[in-house]
């Protein structure tokens, strides 16, 4: 391992803990606290990855986890940021997006063809002759993407936590620490979030004074004060990854997503140093000035041995001093400014005798065989962006760029702030933040420490005042007395190009200009046509340069040109984080274990699980189902109907309400009787059905379909909040469970049970309803005929469902009672011609089409859907739902949804179809055109591929047409 800088350099590393990992198969030694990138840099390895389009070698740019240059492949973690991911013992890291080796990437040959691949080149070629594109697409697709997804991982554990604070401060630099502290002093509960391992932000690496000690002093002072306050929570290594309405902030830390609600938010997200544009500005070794400072101060790594500083402000001189102090030779400070106004730090650098070239630019960088920078060509600037023909070559192994900043505007813009550009200071500024959000620090265009802290205090005062913690006024807006750190035009085009605007997408100055020449002038069109800003770093380091170039090329101001929309998330976030753990409730009926014990095959219906049928020894499924059907027709069976919706309605207006809500009449319905209830929506479409049981004058119990119950209940409440009829409505679906006992022997089974209900035919006729007690269990019993035999539906309180099940099984034992499932029920009801809402109806079915006109009362004043139904009735219906029979048992059985044809014209479809074990025929329901709806008509069903079957339209029901059996 090469030498590291001595303590106190290397704030984040622990020199006592050595860690070994591998990169590209080579063993690398690092220290605890090192990122993959810094451990490699300590070993003088710059090359990390290959770029997206031209496979150019790339290394560290920001060392802040803000750029895509450092994306590497870790196990089950593609596109990992080498300057963020900490090394662990034995970690296997690799570069990305190369063929061959990272050092010798065969893909880099694409760079040689770059002049044949102009901006938007995909649009301009690859499509002649017709059909050729799909072949090219396959080739191009192989080149697509960066990292490799591990398709065999078992997903890690991710979870979520909610947090609530008066004030959330995003960013733990000088502004954030000050703002958090002041808010806490005023009494707020504060959360301070920083993405780095320690608080301090630029105080940890930037130079604020000639001696270079002020940053740490202030940091210590602030941290001590923060630690003394117990109303500040601090989260480090945590990223606030978006701003959502009402200060709803996702904060990512480790494998946990914190969902934080803040009454007020103060953004102290800082600013991002921006690159200069010159030939080969993407070479490994060409880095931000702040990146060099991070290397030295945070990781104790030497950025190189000979540095050239390219600067457009005084910060570059601070970088030079830092490097000089660390023992790195400063070959030149190349200052873009012709007549700089120096501060004390810059003067110190000059006093030290460092070489300064004012009015000069780095025009090009050159590389050595190891692919990183070996020298720069510096030239005198003639006018903005244009240099003299001849320059000086300076050897160096690192180039530090300090030409200006862009605010980390993403969260503020997501909150609705607007970005404007000041042509004098050449800075993007943020305006029009919402009232629950404040800015402080360099995100707000302040860089001087005193100014930053004053502005942070002011932001805290605004926030605590708005929350009612203080009453004093916030004071004057701080406007900076210092010169702007941004150089207006650090952009130098080169005849050979390769002055990268967007490192992610390998876009150069001419790509941006040519996009505008092609007519794509709006910044959004430039982005979409050139892909500038579409890559993983989302324009963090390209938006400013792109806006300047587009403004220049289209003769507009930078402010007019603007930037593209900043969308969440702020930094790329693993999908596992926002997915979290999955909570999917399952609904099991009270008798669930009885079904399992009886060998039920369970079927999912929404969140519910219901028995489809019960296995019988080694018998095949269909025979089991047919046996269940036979047992109902000839004997007795029971089925769990607990998933049906149940709604209790009580009050003097209950019948009036039902008359308005459902299609039928209810006012004259006698107590102790049940009626079919059909529900339509305002468009006259059938949406639910059930049975309305009048338990007393003012009390109804209504059933609804399993899937529709909650919707029906909510719809009832909505209508009655307008009608204000005198009744209470409650959803008792989960309060009750139920069993249907059906078959010729059903009554015999029930009379065996101890009950105060008289089950005899005379006392309890078909469609009767009784309440009573069955073996001490309070019960509501309805005589219904869904399956077409004598049938009793017994609804009892949820907790005693299993007990009731056991009682009925026991009482039915001597008759050979057997449970039956949904499959048998579907056949039984089909034999009786009963429809299932949702299966035999679709989004267009009105009552007349499904032969339910009888269930619609036309002589009552109003019901939901009534007026529309009468509008529909002005015209003959387009189709009718009818029953059909196929006598020929050798004919293939049509499946549900097979089409009904008239010649080649589609005229309808099958909605239900099954073999009837009772009738020994294929029976079904189908929509047919009106002219085919008469019973006896022949319809043609296209059944699978090119095979058609003929079926005969038949009166419903198929079984027991006079419905004698269910009324026995």
């Amino acid at each position, binding site marked *: 391992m090469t030498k590291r800088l001595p303590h106190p350099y290397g704030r984040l590393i622990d020199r006592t803990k050595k860690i070994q990992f591998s990169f590209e198969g080579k063993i690398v030694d690092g220290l605890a606290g090192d990122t993959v990138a810094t451990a490699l840099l300590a070993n003088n390895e710059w090359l990390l990855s290959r770029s997206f389009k031209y496979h150019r070698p790339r290394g560290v740019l920001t060392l802040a986890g803000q750029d895509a240059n450092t994306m590497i492949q870790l196990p089950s973690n593609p596109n990992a940021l080498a300057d963020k991911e900490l090394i662990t013992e034995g970690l296997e890291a690799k570069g990305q997006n190369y063929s061959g080796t990272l050092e010798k990437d065969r893909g880099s040959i694409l760079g040689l063809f770059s002049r044949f691949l102009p901006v938007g080149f995909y649009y301009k070629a690859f499509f002649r002759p017709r059909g050729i594109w799909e072949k090219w697409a396959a080739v191009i697709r192989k080149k697509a993407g960066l990292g490799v997804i591990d398709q065999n991982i078992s997903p890690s554990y991710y979870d979520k936590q909610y947090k609530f604070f008066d004030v959330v401060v995003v960013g733990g630099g000088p502004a954030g620490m000050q703002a958090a502290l002041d808010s806490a002093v005023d009494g707020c509960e504060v959360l301070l979030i920083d993405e780095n391992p320690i608080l301090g932000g630029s105080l940890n690496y930037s130079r604020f004074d000639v001696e270079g000690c002020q940053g740490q002093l202030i940091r210590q002072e602030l941290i001590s004060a923060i630690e003394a306050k117990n109303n500040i929570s601090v989260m480090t290594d945590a990223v606030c990854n978006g701003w959502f*309405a009402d200060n709803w902030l996702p904060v990512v830390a480790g494998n946990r997503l914190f969902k934080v609600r803040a009454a007020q938010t103060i953004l102290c997200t800082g600013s991002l140093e921006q690159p200069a544009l010159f030939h080969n500005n993407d070479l490994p070794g060409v880095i931000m000035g702040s990146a060099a400072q991070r290397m030295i101060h945070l990781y104790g790594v030497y950025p190189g041995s000979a540095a050239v500083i390219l600067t457009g402000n005084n910060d570059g001189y601070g970088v030079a001093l830092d490097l000089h102090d660390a023992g790195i030779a400063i070959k030149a400070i190349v200052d873009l400014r012709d007549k700089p106004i120096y501060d004390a730090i810059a003067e110190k650098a000059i006093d030290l005798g460092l070489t300064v070239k004012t009015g000069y630019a780095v025009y090009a960088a050159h590389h050595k065989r190891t692919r990183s920078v070996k020298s720069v060509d510096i030239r005198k600037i003639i006018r903005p962006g244009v240099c003299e023909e001849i320059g000086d070559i300076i050897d160096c192994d690192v180039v530090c760029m300090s030409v200006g900043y862009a605010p980390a505007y993403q969260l503020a813009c997501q909150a609705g702030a607007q970005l404007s550009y000041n042509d004098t200071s050449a800075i993007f500024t943020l305006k029009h933040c919402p009232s629950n959000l404040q800015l402080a620090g360099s995100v707000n265009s302040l860089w001087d420490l005193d100014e930053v802290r004053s502005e942070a205090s002011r932001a805290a005062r605004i926030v605590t005042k708005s929350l009612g913690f203080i009453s004093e006024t916030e004071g004057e807006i701080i406007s900076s007395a210092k010169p702007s750190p941004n150089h207006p035009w650090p952009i130098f085009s080169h005849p050979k190009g390769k002055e990268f605007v967007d490192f992610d997408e390998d876009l150069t100055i001419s790509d941006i200009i040519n996009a505008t020449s092609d007519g794509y002038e709006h910044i959004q069109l430039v982005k979409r046509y050139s892909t500038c800003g579409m890559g993983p770093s989302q324009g963090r380091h390209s938006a400013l340069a792109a806006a300047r170039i587009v403004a220049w090329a289209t003769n507009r101001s930078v402010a007019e040109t603007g930037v593209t929309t900043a969308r969440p998330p702020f930094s790329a976030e693993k999908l596992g984080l926002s997915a979290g753990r999955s909570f999917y409730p399952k609904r099991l009926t009270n008798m669930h274990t009885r079904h399992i014990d009886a060998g039920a095959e369970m079927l999912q219906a929404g969140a519910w699980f219901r028995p489809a049928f019960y296995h019988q020894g080694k018998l095949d499924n269909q025979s089991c189902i047919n046996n269940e059907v036979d047992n109902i027709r000839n004997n007795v069976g029971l089925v769990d109907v607990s998933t049906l919706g149940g709604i209790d309605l009580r009050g003097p*207006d209950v019948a009036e309400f039902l008359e*308005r809500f459902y299609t039928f009449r209810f006012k004259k319905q006698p107590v102790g009787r049940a009626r079919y209830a059909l529900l339509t929506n*305002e*468009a006259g479409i059938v949406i639910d059905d059930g049975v309305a049981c009048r338990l007393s004058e003012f009390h109804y119990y209504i059933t609804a379909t399993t899937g529709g119950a*909650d919707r029906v*209940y*909510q719809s009832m*409440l*909505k209508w009655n*909040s*307008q*009608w*204000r*009829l*005198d009744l209470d409505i409650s*959803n008792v679906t989960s309060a009750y469970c139920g069993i249907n006992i059906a078959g010729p022997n059903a009554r015999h089974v029930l009379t065996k049970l101890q009950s105060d209900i008289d089950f005899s035919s005379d006392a309890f006729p078909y469609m009767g309803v009784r309440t009573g007690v069955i073996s001490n269990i309070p019960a509501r019993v309805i005589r219904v005929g869904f399956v077409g035999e004598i049938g009793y539906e017994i609804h009892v309180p949820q907790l005693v469902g299993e007990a009731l099940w056991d009682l009925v099984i026991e009482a039915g034992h001597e008759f050979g009672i057997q449970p039956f499932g949904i499959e048998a029920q579907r056949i039984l009801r089909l034999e009786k011609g009963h429809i299932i809402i949702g299966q035999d109806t679709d989004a267009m079915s009105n009552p007349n089409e499904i032969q339910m006109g009888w269930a619609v009362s036309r*002589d009552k*004043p*109003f019901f939901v859907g*009534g*007026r*529309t139904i009468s*509008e529909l009735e002005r015209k003959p219906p387009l189709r009718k739902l009818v029953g059909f029979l196929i006598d020929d048992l050798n004919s293939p059985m049509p499946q549900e949804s097979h089409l009904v044809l008239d010649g080649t014209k589609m005229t309808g479809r099958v909605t239900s179809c099954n073999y009837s074990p009772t009738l020994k025929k294929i029976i079904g329901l189908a929509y047919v055109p009106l002219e085919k709806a008469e019973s006896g008509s022949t319809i043609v069903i296209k059944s699978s591929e090119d095979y058609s079957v003929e079926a005969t339209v038949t009166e419903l029901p198929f079984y027991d047409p006079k419905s004698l059996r269910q009324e026995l």
Partner: protein
Amino acid sequence: MPDHIASSSRDWAEYVFFHDNNAGIVTEWWCHIASSFWFLAERNTVTDEIIRTFKTDELFHGRADVTDPKSESK
């Protein structure tokens, strides 16, 4: 709801299918799913700002009767 007896077919169709779809402040129905409580909200459909929420009795006072076609014809 327009008069379900007297309104023209076109007016009824507009009631059933059409929406004002205003870009700006609207009064609309909301349901608190957990309690199935319906209430009304004034909301800006451009900014998504909720101006106020209120109970339905502010708009619907007392028992609403429906037009009976038979009594109409009398």
